[in-house]
């Protein structure tokens, strides 16, 4: 189920509509991005854990169990350093964690317990927006879409939140690519900012951002992206800001008309947003033979790969959005 709610069919592609249902936020709220940790980081992770941090972690054998590159998540209580209301339904939460701030990569997410009670029962997955290893902090950008996120807004500075993270497998930046196109639908902007920074960090030059939203008020992070990237194109469903239309259509015309030196082989598209938008983008990427990474959404329970709840169909069978993803190669996804 998409973040936008329980009814992706009725929703406009590229747009984002808060759902009426109160449990909608149990699906991954805005996903996102960055290069994966290099092999061998498991050891670094372990060393850090054995350090002075007070963590729940008790077992350190993970790195010998997995062949794949893996950042070990932890469950910890994080103090709230800042909690800002950005718009009617958008909030920015700044939390303290020396672990998450040094182990996160773009596209990963955290699982937050939004209340001290059993109702709502499950944690809420929220993608990591920014983090600072230097300040030992990380930021989450979230939209109130149900009871869990509504309860989250009640927490104030200096209170603590029970958090598991960093979770999932994020975006991968291929340094041989020259053109990077980031496509966000609604809250899909949240993880892409860190991705833009990561691409810049690898020496990537041509970074373009297309942000699709339902209306002017729902365009987030525009100024951040203007500072970080070469061009930002805004589109809204109602035409109240930027171009009128779906962000996937804007992407197509951008690829065909606006890129000064188009080169499919040297381009990567990274997208995050509601699933119908991602599907449209996957089709465009396939037609144009462009590499494409999608941050997928599905309802989650545990977030750590145990419950098998957030399954999506891929060419290699069902995969778990929480652990195998949320970022997948667009070519792998089997769309309904």
């Amino acid at each position, binding site marked *: 189920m998409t973040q936008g709610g329980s009814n992706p069919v009725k929703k406009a592609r590229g747009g984002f509509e808060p759902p009426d249902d109160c449990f909608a936020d149990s699906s991954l709220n805005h996903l996102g991005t960055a290069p994966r940790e290099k092999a061998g980081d498991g050891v670094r992770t372990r060393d850090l854990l054995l350090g002075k941090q007070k963590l729940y972690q008790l*077992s350190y054998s993970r790195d010998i169990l997995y062949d794949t590159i893996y950042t070990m998540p932890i469950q910890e209580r994080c103090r709230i350093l800042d909690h800002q209301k950005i718009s009617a339904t958008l909030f920015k939460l700044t939390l303290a964690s020396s672990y998450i701030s040094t182990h996160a990569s773009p596209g990963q997410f955290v699982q937050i317990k939004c209340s001290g009670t059993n109702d709502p029962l*499950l944690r809420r997955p929220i993608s990591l927006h920014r983090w600072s290893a230097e300040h030992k902090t990380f930021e989450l950008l979230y939209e109130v879409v149900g009871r869990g996120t509504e309860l989250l807004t009640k927490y104030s500075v200096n209170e603590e939140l029970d958090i598991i993270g960093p979770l999932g497998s994020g975006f991968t930046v291929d340094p041989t690519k020259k053109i990077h196109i980031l496509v966000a639908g609604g809250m899909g902007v949240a993880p892409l900012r860190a991705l833009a920074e990561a691409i810049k960090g690898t020496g990537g030059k041509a970074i373009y951002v297309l942000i699709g939203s339902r209306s002017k008020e729902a365009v987030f992070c525009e100024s951040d992206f203007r500072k970080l990237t070469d061009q930002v194109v805004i589109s809204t469903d109602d035409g109240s800001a930027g171009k009128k239309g779906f962000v996937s259509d804007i992407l197509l015309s951008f690829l065909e008309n606006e890129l000064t030196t188009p080169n499919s082989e040297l381009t990567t598209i990274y997208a995050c947003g509601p699933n119908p938008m991602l599907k449209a983008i996957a089709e465009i990427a396939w037609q144009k033979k462009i590499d494409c990474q999608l941050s997928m959404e599905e309802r989650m329970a545990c977030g750590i790969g145990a*419950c098998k709840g*957030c399954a999506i169909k891929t060419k290699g069978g069902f995969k778990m959005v929480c652990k195998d993803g949320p970022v997948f190669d667009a070519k792998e996804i089997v769309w309904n």
Partner: protein
Amino acid sequence: MELAGIKMKNPVMVASGTFGNGREYNDYIDLNKLGAIITKSVTLLPREGNPSPRIVETPAGLLNSIGLQNEGIDYFLKEDLPFLAKFDTPIIVNIAGESVEEYAELARRLSKESMVKGIEVNISCPNVKLGGMTFGVDPKLTKEVISAVRKATTQPIIAKLTPNVTDIKVIGLAAVEAGADALSAINTVVGMAIDIETGRSRLGKLTGGLSGPAIRPIALRMVYELAHSVKVPVIGLGGIMSGSDAVEFLLAGAKAVQVGTANFVDTQASVRIAQEIAEYVHRHPRALNFS
């Protein structure tokens, strides 16, 4: 303590299907601190599971329709069991079949494994077309499955019962008569959730199984009924989130408990609950009778 011949450090087991096959939680807790690990249902052949969405949150509960996704018994014996064998915690393997013969074959395959300390027979999964709950709602079929498993193995057998029956005692007695060494109750309660905007089920499949605190009073009543009508130990589960929840089940007559959905909410739940039970025992030394 000992339960049906299985030696455990404490009465807290992790419920099948909520703990993967241990790996997922090894990052967060010391698996050696658990009373027992009950693995995710294993079937003869790999199963890919049900279409998404597979889960939906309901008030104080979780409705799921996973559909027994697993890699099959061959993969389990090759990959999962050797991993679990590294820990000093009894491994109880949960099995699910589509026919009596499949249950028996699974039990035979597992009977050769010394690391397997017990077999939990899933005759209560509500999310599969064939097998699962179809056996557990009928005392005659329950007897057939448990008898077949009994013939196939000398390991302790736990029959996992469904609450979706008129009288759980009848099913429990049938399982015991057929040779079950213990009963675990309850599996999930069949439920539904509808999206009123589309008029469709919120799950990919029409119905699912409800777990979590929402079903705890139902589970507690059924565990009480079973514990007072069968001679074998009853393992209580259903929405246990804390030590006090677990103690309720123990006071109702359960000899051990399983922690399920709580694992999804708090990776520390099982270890924390074991500790909280110990604190309760310290405060009320004679309230619970651990053998």
